[in-house]
């Protein structure tokens, strides 16, 4: 039987993940269909009620992929319940009658390289250790470049003279990333696009509105899960700062959290998943004179529920506007837009009136 691999969608990270798997295995890689209302319906119908939303989204995607012929499913994991998704999802899917193999790469928030290597070895027994390590590092670099460029775009896309230019360049950069074979090639592509992207003409007003978005990782990174929050804000002409990305979560978090904790005088411990990190970001956004903070998470996200009170208190003490949003599988676009629009209007009014 030929292996057909599928993994859940999250933002643009499909590109590096499929790149990696295409290089270290000769399996077919199935591109999951975009998340639609049907995906979510499938996911919710088969999930327990009070589980957090990413469970329902990824389960829905798996069902769609299995229907399309996938037989090997890959799940990541995180420092909270995310790490336990895989076992229940596996059971639910096999109860539904699907036949497949299921691999969980990150458990309990640890990206244990040895374990990942073991899993990949299972998928591709002919795996060459050196070759796979090479492509692993290449992919990491790719993710880092991607996140860097996206960070820049987030801060500037609202102000481009020719609408759509930055995202268009970004998309073709991702296309070109898919073709690279070596570090030299990757660097060449990156620098080429970096130059192009930085030379896109911007009309950035001096006193522009800057909003930081923080919260639970999946909802932050998957546009469908956050009702296209970033795009909405761009349309209002807002500069966006988002800290959470894969580079941070997998490669920087371990070191940075200790630093963050030292700088916070209102928090003593890590609070699970990214709860404490987000408190630090709040401090950062306040100190750097941002105009507002949007805290977004899926319903029932325990760690982020825990930090809301603390973040709310910090914002109140420093007169920083903050908007808390819980998304669920049935969050309507209209209600969502109203909240964001009103938040923007409020900030604008406050700014005008000093």
């Amino acid at each position, binding site marked *: 039987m030929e292996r057909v691999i599928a993994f859940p969608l999250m933002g643009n990270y499909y590109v590096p993940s499929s790149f990696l798997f295409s290089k270290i295995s000769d399996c077919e890689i199935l591109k999951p269909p975009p998340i639609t209302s049907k995906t979510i319906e499938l996911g919710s119908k088969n999930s327990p*009620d*009070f589980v957090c939303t990413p469970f329902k989204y990824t389960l829905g995607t798996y069902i769609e992929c299995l229907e399309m012929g996938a037989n090997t499913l890959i799940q990541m994991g995180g420092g909270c319940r995310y*790490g*336990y998704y895989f*076992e229940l999802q596996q059971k639910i899917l096999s109860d539904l009658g699907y036949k497949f193999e299921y691999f969980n790469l990150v458990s309990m928030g640890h990206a244990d390289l040895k374990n990942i290597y073991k899993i990949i070895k299972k998928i591709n027994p002919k795996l060459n250790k050196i070759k796979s390590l090479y492509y692993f590092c290449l992919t990491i670099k790719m993710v880092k470049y991607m996140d860097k460029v996206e960070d820049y775009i987030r801060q500037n896309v609202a102000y481009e003279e020719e609408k759509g230019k930055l995202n268009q360049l970004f998309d073709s950069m991702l296309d070109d990333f898919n073709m690279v074979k070596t570090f030299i090639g990757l660097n060449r592509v990156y620098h080429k696009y970096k130059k192009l992207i930085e030379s896109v003409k911007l009309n950035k007003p001096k006193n522009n509105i800057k909003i930081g978005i923080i919260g639970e990782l999946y909802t932050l990174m998957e546009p469908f899960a956050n009702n296209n929050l970033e795009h909405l804000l761009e349309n209002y002409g807002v500069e966006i700062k988002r800290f959470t990305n894969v580079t941070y979560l997998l490669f920087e978090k371990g070191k940075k959290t200790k630093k963050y904790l030292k700088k916070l005088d209102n928090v003593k*411990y890590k609070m*699970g998943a990214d709860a404490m990190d987000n408190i630090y970001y709040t401090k950062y956004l306040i100190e750097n004179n941002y105009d507002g903070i949007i805290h977004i998470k899926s319903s029932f996200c325990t760690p982020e529920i825990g*930090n809301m009170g*603390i973040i709310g208190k910090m914002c109140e003490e420093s007169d920083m506007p903050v908007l808390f949003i819980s998304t669920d599988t049935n969050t309507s676009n209209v209600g969502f837009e109203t909240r964001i629009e009103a938040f923007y209007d409020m900030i604008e009014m406050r700014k005008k009136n000093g």
Partner: protein
Amino acid sequence: MKIGIPRSLYYYYFKDLWQYFFEYLNIEVIVSPETNKQIMDLGVKYSNDEMCLSMKNYIGHIAYLKDKCTHILIPRIDNYGLSNQTCTNFLSTYDIINNIFDINILNYNINLKNNETELKGFLNIGRKLGINKKYIKDAYIYARVKSSKIKKEKVLKNLKNLRSDKRKILLVGHPYNIYDKLIGEPIINMLKSLNIEIIYCDLFYTKNEYDRYSKGLYWKYNKENISSISKCIDRIDGIIFLSSFPCGPDSLVNELVIRKLDKPYINIIVDDVESSGGIETRIESFVDIVNEL
């Protein structure tokens, strides 16, 4: 000096240990009363709306204690080793509480991954209270021995009940829910009045016997709960799962276990202790099912 101990959350794991520890040191202790409406209302008032019922309960007990003692004991439990984690609420309670109330918190941390053991935690408490190390160590050992003995008695009784002639139902849930006056106790009383022998999931000595139901489980307290099912599944007639809304670990683990279970069960999720929406009816009909087996 008077140490306040909230009768909620951690209390149900450590009550004997704490009681004997402070008794040995001759330090006065005040334990908040059984949860009542006033305490629950305080919890709702001070907590975030989306928090689970058990967190609200805990915050209520602290609100009750805050003017009645010099310190409030709030431990933090990160993990008991690599795949023995706790719910993230156990990681964050200290900081959440510290940012809600202006109180003097007596805190220790358990993080075995980082070699921060319970004993070290108690020594830390001693340092904060200005008590010498040797004395604390003695108190800790005294409390450990005493509390283990109590646990042993309870476990033996639980095992004895397993041999009862009555219908036996295993109550699976976190001790802070099962033994709470307003969350679990009404259910326990109902079962008793229906002549059911209740087997408690926390009163077993288990050694990671959960893998019959879940292989990748990494929450210590859920491991214990689920292991108890493996321990006695052949000798019980039914299982009641009791959770507080919307418990993160339970939402996944209980669903997985239920899918693999071949015994009658019900899954009870409590959100509001004052209006338990027909739990009584559900328990009664469940007991009917169990009785007809």
